[in-house]
């Protein structure tokens, strides 16, 4: 047992950190620090910088453009990326559909899609959830019928993140109504520009537009857009969801936010002195930092285990990551609310042009608090996570 990073790992961290310092556009970083939404251009610009460096799809196999890093290096890269902060790679392409295509797709599909995912030539979105299929995803109803050399797709998806930017969607569709519900699902990809695709925005409680409803009305999709085998889509979906076990904790994101809270709490006054001098506040902040340290160590245990024993058998501790990770993210947004106090209320009248430095940092704090309620709901709600621990770990 040796719990320290090696010299090589520390040097790698320095290399990554200095690359971010030199290459992340300052305005992009500022917006992330202030909890603002980025434009499509800002995100794509950064991802292409990352891809040019060869780090766009770092965890892919090297023959498809991956880096061949160790699991600890991946951990360090993600932590530095999140805590700088810089935009994380577009998960829908890089972490979700990419690995499904290089694992289950045919050669033609690999050649066609993978390089475009890496360079974000196509923006991908995820067609999984439906109005009636949330935690019970396998009950989905969107239908793909085979007609000649085409699939005809009808149905509706929801919570489709950033579908307003998307060029492509990967979609779970029912292709066999008679099979057991998990057995009749196929994994089909198609263009969001296809005739019959309609995207309708959902405004969330923070006032933002991240998610959408997507409607399919007799959408025609070439038959070769099926990934893997027909009716095996559920297996691919499970593979996809199980792929990102450690990123979900978002330790780097919470680290960055805690640094920000400490910084702001040294400036904002309460009872005539900076709020950081208030013992009750300071202890709450320390409590959150301690929880995060425990989570970071738990994450490292999972990472080290994967590095050593492969991803086959997940470390039981990995189920902790989603639950604690989301709880801590939510706590950090609560602490920010506490720092800002009565100035949580004003709506963002200044916009995000950076012209009013005195007020800009306050504008997104309440929206960010509202928005972060999502993290214990998405990716399998924390209640589902507890079901998983009870069954898979405790054998209940």
């Amino acid at each position: 047992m040796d719990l320290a990073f090696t010299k090589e790992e520390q040097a790698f961290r320095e290399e990554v950190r200095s690359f971010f310092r030199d290459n992340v556009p300052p305005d992009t970083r500022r917006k992330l620090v202030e909890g603002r939404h980025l434009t499509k251009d800002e995100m794509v610009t950064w991802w292409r910088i990352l891809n040019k460096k060869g780090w766009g799809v770092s965890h892919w196999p090297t023959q498809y453009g991956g880096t061949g890093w160790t699991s600890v290096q991946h951990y360090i890269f993600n932590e530095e990326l999140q805590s700088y902060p810089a935009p994380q790679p577009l998960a829908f392409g890089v972490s979700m559909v990419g690995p499904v295509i290089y694992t289950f797709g045919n050669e033609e599909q690999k050649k066609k899609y993978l390089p475009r995912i890496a360079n974000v030539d196509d923006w991908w979105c995820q067609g999984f959830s439906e109005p009636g299929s949330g935690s019970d995803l396998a009950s989905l109803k969107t239908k793909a019928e085979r007609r000649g050399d085409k699939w005809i797709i009808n149905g509706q998806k929801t919570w489709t993140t950033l579908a307003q930017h998307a060029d492509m969607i990967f979609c779970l569709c029912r292709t066999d109504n008679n099979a057991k519900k998990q057995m009749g699902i196929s994994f089909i990809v198609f263009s969001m520009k296809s005739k019959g695709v309609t995207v309708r925005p959902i405004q969330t409680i923070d006032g933002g537009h991240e998610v959408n409803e997507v409607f399919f009305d007799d959408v025609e999709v070439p038959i070769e857009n099926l990934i893997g085998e027909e009716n095996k889509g559920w297996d691919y979906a499970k593979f996809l969801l199980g792929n990102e076990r450690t990123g979900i904790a978002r330790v780097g994101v919470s680290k960055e936010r805690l640094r920000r809270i400490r910084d702001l709490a040294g400036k904002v006054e309460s009872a005539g002195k900076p709020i950081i001098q208030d013992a009750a506040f300071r202890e709450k902040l320390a409590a959150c930092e301690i929880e995060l340290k425990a989570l970071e160590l738990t994450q490292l245990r999972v990472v080290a285990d994967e590095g050593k024993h492969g991803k086959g058998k997940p470390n039981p501790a990995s189920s902790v990551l989603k639950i604690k990770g989301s709880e801590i993210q939510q706590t950090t947004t609560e602490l920010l609310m506490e720092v800002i106090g009565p100035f949580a209320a004003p709506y963002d009248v200044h916009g995000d042009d950076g012209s009013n430095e005195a007020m800009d940092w306050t504008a997104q704090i309440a929206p960010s608090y509202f928005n972060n309620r999502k993290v214990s709901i998405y990716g399998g709600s924390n209640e589902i996570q507890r079901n998983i621990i009870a069954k898979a770990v405790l054998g209940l």
Partner: protein
Amino acid sequence: MDFDLSEEQRLLKESIDGLLTDSYDFEQRKKYMKEKGGWSRAVWLKLAEQGLLGLPFSEADGGFGGGGVETMIVMEALGKALVLEPYLATVVIGGGFLRHAGTDAQKAAHIPGIIDGSKTLAFAQLEKNSRYDLFDVATTAKKKGDGWVIDGEKFVVLNGENADTLVVTARTKGDRRDKTGIGVFLVPANARGVTKKSYPTQDGLHAADITLTGVEVGADAAIGNPEDSLALIERVVDEARVALCAEAVGLMDESLKTTVEYIKTRKQFGVAIGSFQSLQHRASDMFVATEQARSMSMFATMANDFENAKERSNAIAAAKVQIGKSLKFVGQQSIQLHGGIGMTMEAKIGHYFKRLTMIENTFGDTDYHQRRVADAGGLV
């Protein structure tokens, strides 16, 4: 970065787990409690035979040169089996003072007896009003000739009833809450002027309140600098805190396992109560709390070797906070999920709960350590 045990560490774990499986089930523990002093000399000698009492001492001192990870392995195992014997008081704390600051003569006088199991130690530190502040010392040690005369009262001295030697903190200079002027003294338990009031503790261990009245010891009784040993005391108590964190992880592991087994077998309404979602979620949260505690126990073990004393103390304080929160949740919910049977002395779960509860209030509780971390500027 490697969280796996080395081959030697794995063997150590197997060896102590094996020993305790054979000689420390819950029924055997009840018998040991009734022995003189409240623990088993026979088990203690078995620990000695397997080299466990000599684990952290250097090979030059007759030990095995084990580090923090080795102590963590042992303490987890002791926790899992709810062991009564005074490993913490004798090997971790008493041995810690000798290892870090003992003279060759002091080491030669005490370490061989610790290693072969013939001698035990106790740490006489807590005072009526000191609570968790290690520098709050009213007991005095006054110079007399070459030696010292010690006067004061110490409370809840674990293993104080049985120890052969007491490690006593006493003030050689200054006022009660000064951070300098504190010394550490080796005092024979049978020295003239030492009186003890012994009692069992809530968790089945044994302790004593000890009064020292004009106790005379020689110049060679002082470990370290008799006028400035707070840093030494903090160092050794930090090691004790780390050991308690590991013990608590062992206790939580066993509490969770016992509770899960219970709800799998206990039937109500015709089904195992573990099939109810509210109980499943509670058990899942106990698992999360235990894993977070395990992570921080590892972190504390690593922090033991930090060169910077402030960083070390801050990290270990943070670990004690996490362990304190986790053990309270796991302990309380273990009783809740057992229902009525959990309230009885007969069931083993309540005894785990009681030991966990006492660990929270040993060497600083959760609030105390959280304040320390907060005042030190946090843990980012």
